[in-house]
């Protein structure tokens, strides 16, 4: 199966007054057609920056300093702005957190969908309105004709996110990037939104890159997972594989730090703090906090395959038993 999207060795730097922040360092990930892939990490791990980099939405002081972003056979980093614009919103769409502020406050939501349809030629001029209403219905908004004429401030947070999803999927993109789509939403509404994403993904055949810090969401929704730490991608696995046999010390620590519903076992916070990205450690950035650290960790870490569809960027993995918590 050829990949739909493949990031290879992507690096992003930010030029700040205090120096160059190396926000993303050699990130790599693959998404196959129709797959749901979760990109997991703490706040500040570079997940959102990676997502913005894929759509080339990064503005100075951020800049992509290396790597390739291969989408449907082309390197997106090599495209002109014109060409990139035709990719955004039609072949790759993005859904952001804070849905209400992501909608234009002075345009009716229906119009916002309509003009996207018109722009990307996804609907004939006379049919844009109908199609927009149909999309609203598909994302589960009751009374879609009435809602289409309303403004963002008249809709609830959950409804706004549904509208955003409708906008993102209206043009039948092949990849949908969802950046923390349920932040700020009620727990039950969040669950509905995630269900919606998965269903629509299945129905339209779109692949989804779901960016989140919540492992529970990943467990429920994703086919595969990529773990990110301090700007580096450290582990790639199928969801089951990750939870059953986490390989990277960071992943293990992450899983150990999650409180269990049954209260069994103590919560173990990860020692130390996220390293400064202004002067990050060479090689593996988890090394300073890692109990398995070795001399080779100071050099760029090679990726090892340790199972079926399970890879990890760690030299210390072989031989380390997984005796911790987590299923």
């Amino acid at each position, binding site marked *: 199966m050829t990949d739909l999207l493949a990031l290879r060795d992507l690096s992003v730097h930010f030029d700040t007054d205090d120096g160059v922040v190396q926000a993303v360092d050699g990130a790599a990930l693959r998404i196959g057609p129709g797959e749901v892939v979760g990109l997991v990490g703490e706040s500040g791990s570079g997940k959102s920056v990676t997502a913005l980099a894929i*759509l080339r939405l990064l503005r100075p002081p951020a800049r992509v300093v290396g790597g390739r972003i291969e989408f449907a056979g082309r390197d997106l980093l090599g495209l002109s702005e014109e060409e990139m614009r035709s990719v955004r919103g039609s072949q790759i769409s993005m859904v952001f957190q804070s849905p209400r502020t992501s*909608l234009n*406050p002075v345009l009716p939501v229906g119009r916002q969908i309509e003009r996207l349809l018109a722009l990307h030629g996804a609907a004939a001029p006379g049919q844009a309105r109908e199609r927009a209403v149909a999309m609203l219905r598909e994302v589960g908004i009751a009374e879609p004709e009435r809602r289409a004429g309303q403004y963002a401030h008249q809709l609830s947070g959950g409804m706004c996110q549904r509208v955003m999803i409708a906008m993102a999927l209206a043009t039948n993109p092949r990849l949908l990037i969802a950046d923390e789509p349920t932040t700020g939403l009620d727990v039950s509404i969040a669950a509905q939104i995630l269900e919606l994403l998965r269903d629509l993904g299945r129905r339209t055949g779109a692949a989804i890159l779901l960016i989140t810090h919540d492992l529970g969401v990943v467990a429920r929704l994703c086919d595969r997972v990529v773990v990110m730490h301090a700007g580096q991608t450290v582990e790639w696995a199928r969801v089951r594989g990750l939870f059953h046999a986490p390989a990277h010390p960071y992943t293990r620590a992450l899983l150990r730090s999650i409180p269990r519903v049954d209260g069994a076992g103590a919560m173990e916070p990860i020692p130390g703090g996220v390293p400064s990205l202004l002067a990050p450690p060479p090689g593996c950035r988890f090394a300073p906090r890692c109990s398995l650290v070795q001399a080779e960790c100071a050099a760029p870490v090679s990726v090892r395959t340790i199972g079926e569809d399970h890879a990890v960027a760690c030299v210390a993995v072989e031989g380390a038993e997984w005796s911790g918590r987590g299923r």
Partner: protein
Amino acid sequence: MLGYIGRRILLVVPTLFGVTLVTFVLTYVLPGNPALVKAGPLATPQHIAEMERRMGLDQPMAVQYWRYLRGLFRGDLGESHITGRPVLEDLVQRVPATLELTLAALLVALAAGIPLGVVAAVRRDGWLDHVSRLLGVGGVAMPTFWTGLLALYVFFYALGVAPPPLGRLATDITPPPRVTGLLTVDALAAADWRALGSALHQLVLPALVLGFSVMAPLTRMVRATMLEVLESDYIKAAWAAGLPRRTVVYGDALRNCMIPVITLIGVVFGFLMAGNVVVESVFAWPGIGNYAVAAMMSKDSGPIQSFVLFVGVVYVFVNLAVDLVYGLVDPRIRLR
């Protein structure tokens, strides 16, 4: 929406009371005896006392205020010593001149200031941005009367392109029949091209000077608003959706920027009214500002306070209109 309109209109009433109270205090309560002024320089003490009784100056404050208010409703704003006419009449006769100048200046300020602020924000740190910031910082520091004099010196004395500051029309042209009082409009209505040309010729320099004086703060505020809008989430989402630059910046962002700019127009109007006084003085423009200044020169205090009252009331209503328009235009207020 109706609630918003209702509340806003209701707010006008106490504000107007406040305005009349202030001018009442300025007219009667402060040192200086209005009876003395009214009775004239040859009055005897008995005359003055009689005048005081007649003007109700021996009454308690509240009663005097009530009389003042009643007078206002009757349209009694006192009399002018220079013209010998009721102040209200004088004001009404002179308002069109001020209105014409103010509108022209407003046009200049909006037409130049808004695009400049927008482009300065869009092309941040570009040469236009630097120009706009320079103008903003410099323009705010320049006294309007000085700008006016400078303009006169350069364009009238040195270059000879501007007419002598003698009023609204060249002295050898008869004004067109009065329809609105605005000479440009009236000349247009009467198809009197000579008068139109002259009126415009006389209007250009004062309008530019006054417009420039308010352009500086306006540009700064528009630029700040546009910068904020360009950083907002929905603009970022618009970029992500592949909308072309033209639509995102000059469609979505601009539209969202213009809404708060509406409220800025109220503030700008306040600056215009203040600047009017000085510009009319520099260019001998026969408006209400000049009237007030001339009255003051000859110790005629009645017209000044009536002028202050007039401007205050107009300002209140202008702000009301601005708020109402804002409520209509912003869907967040118009709908629930």
